[in-house]
């Protein structure tokens, strides 16, 4: 949908030239980082990783990275159990994607659905949803995490549940505000006059108009989720060991920070690069997809 609006306004050039121009306008650096740090490793983890990420060689514990004089087989060194850091980081990308993807999908779905209903139906629905949002946002996320972890234990599903529980309110709040605006637009009135059902109006008329907002919001949330998962691991309520979650690796590297700084550093770098890239991408998308800006 977005390219339609862009191309129509741009007008003239077509074919290869236009294509090339559009590619050049993309935020290439963040996209490249996301591909290199996150997407490609996640897809090809088995073939890219030089070692098994789960089992180490205890004799090769705490080896420094190859470029600092460590054994040449461990490019980024090894951790306290002798596992190859590079392999763990590569496999960690899968966990990052899984947690962020599942958390954002579930939280985003619930939040969007509630936000749409609140903004469209108003009345009691709106009051209830906004109160719930206020309450959710006023409870510290870490507290939620501790309670959930205590209830169902530190598991992958628990982490996703925690993320969703924190995120839905962010979505609900933003989506309510947007759908409130669209629900009062003349085209929604015309759809009602034409006889469209509430469901059709919400799904066919309002939702497509907030799709851009959702895309931007979700992009910006990826960074949050990855950092948040890291803090959960730090508190010991995140992804359980021995899974190579980046946050967990940083947490585990903490006690070796003086003697073997690379254990915490490289996963931390992966987190930082990913978060930064997603935030840059989100900002770019926001500028690009904002209908107010595209109309000028």
């Amino acid at each position, binding site marked *: 949908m977005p390219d339609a609006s862009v191309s129509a306004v741009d007008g003239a050039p077509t074919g290869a030239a236009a294509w090339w121009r559009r590619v050049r306008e993309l935020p290439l650096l963040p996209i490249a980082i996301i591909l290199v740090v996150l997407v490609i490793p996640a897809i090809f983890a088995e073939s890219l990783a030089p070692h098994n990420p789960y089992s180490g060689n205890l004799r090769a514990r705490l080896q420094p990275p190859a470029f600092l004089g460590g054994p040449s087989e461990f490019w980024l060194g090894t951790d306290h159990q002798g596992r190859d850091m590079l392999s763990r980081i590569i496999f960690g990308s899968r966990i990052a994607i899984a947690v962020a993807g599942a958390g954002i999908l579930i939280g985003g779905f619930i939040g969007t659905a509630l936000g749409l209903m609140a903004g469209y139906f108003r009345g009691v629905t709106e009051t209830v949803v906004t109160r719930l949002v206020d309450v959710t946002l006023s409870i510290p996320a870490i507290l939620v995490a501790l309670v959930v972890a205590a209830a169902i234990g530190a598991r992958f599903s628990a982490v996703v549940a925690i993320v969703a529980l924190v995120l839905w309110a962010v979505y609900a709040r933003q989506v309510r505000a947007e759908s409130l605006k669209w629900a009062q637009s*003349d085209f929604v*009135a*015309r*759809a009602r*006059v034409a006889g469209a059902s509430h469901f*059709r109006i919400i799904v066919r008329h309002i939702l497509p*108009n907030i*799709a851009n907002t959702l895309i931007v919001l979700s992009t910006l949330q990826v960074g949050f989720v990855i950092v948040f998962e890291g803090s959960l691991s730090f508190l010991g309520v995140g992804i359980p060991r021995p899974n190579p979650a980046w946050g967990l690796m940083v947490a585990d590297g903490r006690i070796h920070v003086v003697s073997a700084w690379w254990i915490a550093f490289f996963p931390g770098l992966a987190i930082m690069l990913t978060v930064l890239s997603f935030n840059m991408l989100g900002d770019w998308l926001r500028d690009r997809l904002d209908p107010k800006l595209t109309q000028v």
Partner: protein
Amino acid sequence: MATKPSLSVERLSRHFPVTTRRWFKTTTAVVKAVDGISFTVGEGETLALVGESGCGKTTTARLILALDRPTSGVIMLGDTNVHDVTGDDYRRYREQVQAVFQDPWSSLNPRMRVREIVSEPLVVNRKRSRREIGERVAEVLAAVGLNPSHADRFPHEFSGGQRQRIALASALSSDPKLIILDEPVSSLDVSIRAQTMNLFRDLQQQFNVSYLLIVHDLAVARYMSDEVAVMYLGKIVEQARTEALFHDPLHPYTKALFAAALPGHPDVQREEIILEGEVPSPIDPPAGCPFHPRCPLKIGEICETVVPQFRPEREGHWVACHLYPEETSAPGAAEA
């Protein structure tokens, strides 16, 4: 009225409760946005509802479109009571009454293609085949002067005037009996306005549809309508066939509106009736005749205390004003 009515509205009212909070005191007042109005729209005719901002025109339109429920009163489309239909009748009603709104930029969904916009009234109401829908879309697009190839475009690729055409095509697609036009040309450029008004008139003939035209520009009302109703503060103060009303307006408010209208030529000299003050708030409308605080022809206490009856002063020319007391009209015309 000249032809048999397509829409008839009787003693229609819509009162909005409004609460204002000041510190800890909450006060509830009532806005009488529409207050007991009655009118009919003849088949294939245009009734223009004219009046200044806030007099209740849009509220009336929303009631007829069943976007809002009246506080009291009845709206009949043919033999169906609009606010009591369910099931199939409801769907039929939704096909028969359509609308074109003022702002061509906000009245088309920017994420839908023209085809989907135009066919919406067809798709949502009755099962029709794809082909049937496709043919109808092409037909109405052609009728409003757009190309069939436009069906696959998005609204932002069109200008304001073209967008109003798309909105009209959509309204016409389900073959309605009545289309409500809420200020359909006031946001268009002067040179586009004439095209659009001519198109609306031509299509009325072609599709035999009635229009309820909401408009504040009297010249537009004269050009487009067969009958005019003048609204003030939620009430209709005068109604007549267009030519009769423009030749001989009776109500002082109508006269003042005519005097205030801009001339078509610098040599046009009009009687200067400049109303003082502003339209009073509908929250607390004046007692008696709602127009009396601004009326240059006020005759006395009766204006401040007694609500004038809306009654026919002449054949087909109704007015609510104490200047035209019942005695002067035909005997027997009086009613409670």
